[in-house]
């Protein structure tokens, strides 16, 4: 792992202060702030949005299960929104990787990048096959998983802010 200054993609001036081999004294471009902010970071905003959206989707889907509703178009649309958010997140992380930054667990991260966008798609297909209240229950799992995956991504690579 190289110890070069953070290749900032203009995504909010975040600097990874947690890479063990990169002490804070490492020279950095003047552009970069040293403050670790959750507000200015696009990453943080997207991650937080996904967590909120995932939990909201899970809550809504569980409500549908409780009310004995089947899968419907609004729920599918919500799954689609979650999918788009996840793809944006994957794009941001891939951009960071292309920019030369590397997490400690690169293999794990790549596994997550492949698996994450598949979760809502697989849940939508599996849920649509079910013509009962248990279809939305599958969607609820996907929403929860999306939220958990964001926390795990942050653990794998602290550059990804929550």
């Amino acid at each position: 792992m190289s110890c070069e200054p953070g290749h900032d993609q203009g995504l909010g001036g975040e600097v990874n202060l947690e890479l063990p081999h990169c002490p804070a004294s490492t020279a950095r471009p003047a552009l970069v702030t040293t403050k670790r902010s959750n507000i200015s970071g696009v990453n943080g905003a997207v991650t937080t949005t996904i967590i909120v959206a995932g939990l909201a989707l899970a809550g809504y889907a569980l409500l549908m299960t409780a009310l004995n509703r089947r899968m419907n178009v609004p729920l599918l649309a919500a799954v689609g929104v979650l999918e788009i958010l996840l793809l944006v997140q994957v794009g941001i992380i891939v951009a960071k990787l292309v920019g030369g930054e590397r997490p400690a667990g690169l293999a794990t991260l790549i596994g997550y990048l492949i698996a994450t966008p598949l979760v809502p798609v697989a849940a939508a297909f599996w849920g649509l096959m079910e013509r009962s209240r248990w279809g939305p229950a599958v969607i609820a799992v996907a929403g929860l998983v999306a939220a958990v995956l964001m926390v795990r991504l942050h653990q794998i690579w602290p550059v990804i802010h929550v």
Partner: protein
Amino acid sequence: MSEPMAPPEPTASQPDSTRTGPGRLLVAIYALFALSASARAGVQIVTKFGHAPVAYLLSAFAAVVYILATVTLAVGSPTARRIAVLSCSVELAGVLAVGTWSLADPATFPDATVWSSYGSGYGFVPLVLPVFGLLWLRRWTRRARTQRTTVTSAEDAGEAADSGVAHGESGASGQGAEDVVADGRI
């Protein structure tokens, strides 16, 4: 959020397999664990097997059990159900054994497995999942047995399913006919 999107509907059809109804949710969660346990075990074994060999081999074993449970629950034939009962039982025993082992002898587990500390790293889902799996499978075994003793023909089984719908009893006796026939062959 809470506005009704569609009129409430009764459960449209009775579950006709272990993969439908509540089983749909079970298979989804099992598939999730099958995927995550295999990926995790694969990465650990390939990249740093020497670090915690026992933990990684147990992770791999857990992955195999999850895959087996996922596939057999999704297939749902009488034979598959028997294998599913076996894998869920092994899973439950594994969570309890590895959970206890990991607490009693932490030195053997420098890195966690899916079942460490009774699956606390996964919100204890690994502990709860096999219990629900076995309950779901037991319902099917009982249903098959009841159908075998009380129903004499496939038509009667169909009527039993209809009355189940009429009483709004979810997950009742719909698969009886198929089961009687299938069980008879084995």
